[in-house]
């Protein structure tokens, strides 16, 4: 749980502010309370949010300065609201696994690299070439050249929790 209900609302707010501040700082290279707009996806997502690209663009529209930077002062209230309202909730492991099963239409338990590529490179928010290569590099089991998605999901979820 992100916010144990036993804590009072003030503690909750300061806790949220701290987390946002910590994450922001990692990308604030010049320590001047600004980050490049291109980093905002990593910040929002690393705070445990799972927005779509379109939703992310909405956030950026709300906080971006004309010069392509994001100021902490403007980012903090927007992001606090997102976290407090628990928008963009995490995707549970079984939901994720079911999604892979949908793609595995013959129920083989695995996907071919080109099968997965076809799905990931289509739709409203297709993967870039780079994203695709990176995903395959960790998803494809080298000996069989197949994606055993159950193992893959397991591995990724475990790694994420470390």
């Amino acid at each position, binding site marked *: 749980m992100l916010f144990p209900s036993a804590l009072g609302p003030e503690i909750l707010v300061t806790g949220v502010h701290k987390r946002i501040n910590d994450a922001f700082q990692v990308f604030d290279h010049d320590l001047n309370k600004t980050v490049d707009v291109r980093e905002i996806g990593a910040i929002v997502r690393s705070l445990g949010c799972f927005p779509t690209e379109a939703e992310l663009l909405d956030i950026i529209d709300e906080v971006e300065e004309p010069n392509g930077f994001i100021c902490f002062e403007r980012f903090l209230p927007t992001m606090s609201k997102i976290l407090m309202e628990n928008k963009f909730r995490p995707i549970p492991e079984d939901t994720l696994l079911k999604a892979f099963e*949908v793609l595995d239409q013959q129920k083989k338990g695995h996907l071919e690299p080109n099968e997965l590529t076809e799905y990931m490179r289509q739709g409203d928010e297709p993967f870039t070439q780079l994203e695709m290569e990176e995903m395959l590099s960790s998803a494809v089991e080298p000996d069989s050249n197949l994606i055993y998605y159950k193992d893959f999901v397991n591995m990724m979820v475990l*790694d994420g929790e470390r």
Partner: protein
Amino acid sequence: MGCGMGKAAASLGKKRERAMRAALLIQRWYRQYVARLEMRRRCTWNIFQSIEYAGEQDQIKLYNFFGYLMEHFTPASSERSLISHIFRENDVVHDTEWERYFCYKSIEVSHGYHGPHLTFPMTFCEASKLVEAFKHKQLLHSRYVLQLLGEAWKLLRILPNINHVSTCHSKEITICGDLHGQLEDLLLVFYKNGLPSSEKPYVFNGDFVDRGKSSMEILLILFAFLLVYPNGVHLNRGNHEDHIVNLRYGFTKEVLGKYRVHGKKILKLLQKMFSWLPLATVIDGKVLVVHGGISDTTDLNVIARMERHKYVSALRPPKSGRVHLDVVDTPTHDRRRDGPLTMGLWPFQMVDLLWSDPMAQDGCQPNQVRGGGCYWGPDVTEEVLGRHHLQLLIRSHECKQDGYEFCHNRRVLTLFSASNYYEVGSNRGAYVRMGPDLVPHFIQYQSSQTCRTLTLRQRTERSALCALREQLFAHKSDLLGAFQHYDPDNTGVISLKHWASAMEGVLKLGLPWRVLRSQLGTSTQDGMLDYREWIQDLVFSEPKHEVLILETMYRNHSNLETIFRIIDTDHSGSLSFEEFRQTWKLLSAHLKTEVDDDAIADLALSIDFNKDGSIDINEFMEAFRLVALAVPS
């Protein structure tokens, strides 16, 4: 939707829609996963970089301390006489005597030698033979090494401070950044881009040596091609082309290890050659290529007239060219903006070229992170480039994730050619090709490819944390003191906030401590942290020696090695007990702390493994490393 659509088609459409939704979910999940990894990667990067710069700062402090000894102690004092030899200027002896000293002719090449045989004058054939031999891990015989270096030295001496090259004659010029002894990267660049020649000119932008294992081979290759194509190969000096820096960062050790008999001679000659390396290259009068960068006082006309060879080290201007300095502290601290822009400032021209980094804010300030050179802002870039009618500054000196990075409105380009610099997978290397239009084209690479990039990232992260734990261990007492400061009632617990400020207060690494806390094994209860337990967990082996001396040793690991190698004047690799004691005396004077004589004697005895009354420097440093490796990841 046609009305004739049958059941099958409807189900197909539904299926497709489900697949689209599933794909979107997976994309959303995967992007979140990558973002979290990216966050951790940034932390890792910060750790490596902070520790690297803290080390450089340390080195410069030590260096300034030596400078202080030199200026404030009488020539007869024992401290001074221990170190004075490293500051001796180059040309005390006539060149003819040098040539005799470096003469290779008396060195026989035995029949057992299987490496390459060189003939002079150098030709393209001979130089590529050398590349081939090094590819197969062969060692060049010290006779050929001295001969090759001697020839290159004669050539370097007639080169100007600033190389001027033009792209008009040949099609494109290739520029490489830091190589740092990583031969694989140089070979990869040659493989992808071709060997240097008149038609394929190269600029190598300094930091050829240190850190990597094959600094010597890289130098030999670069000098060989320089001899064949003096107009096709351009070398700029980097801050690591400095014999005092080499004492700390591995090049001295590498040479002495590879050339046990003649290593000392080779080092002496290289020290001279480094001071004769040109400082910058200007392409078509428009692009300045220099290792570190510029400052607000940078003036290429002054630089062109400098006696560069008098700078045995860029950090210490030669006697003749310097204004009075208070050398107790880093000279950069109190130097700027005090005096008028006169020749009095020009001792810093050199250190600014070799040590500086760009910053995002306007202005120019001392580079306190590295301890030498300055930070310069976009306004300084504008002004200096404008004053010299330049359009682009290409510099190296900083490791970048992608091998290159623009800043200052794309007028400054950082270029770094050593891939996997911090750890396998940490960064790509890059080089630049540029034609008469002067538009840089980037080629990126990574010398060892691994398929599972994500597992690789974890490994990088682990080794960064391991390096960090070593730092924590080295500062254990100070940390404990800082924690206790926040715990006046001696409860044994402090808040996470205090923990983080204590960590930063002691280590000064500028790291996001709170983000790192889980990786550092801190667990909290109600937001409070049991610091005693946490500190206890940092110590893994019961130290045999007094804890204080052990900590001092850890913390000054590299300083100690530097002093050892300075005191070991004959480069024998071993020290007497007395010299060992003097090392510690120097170190404790530098740190302004008392180190107990008995404790040192104890340490010396326990380290003299073969009981011959002398201490092997390499063994001594290795003994440290063993403890360091024992730290579990």
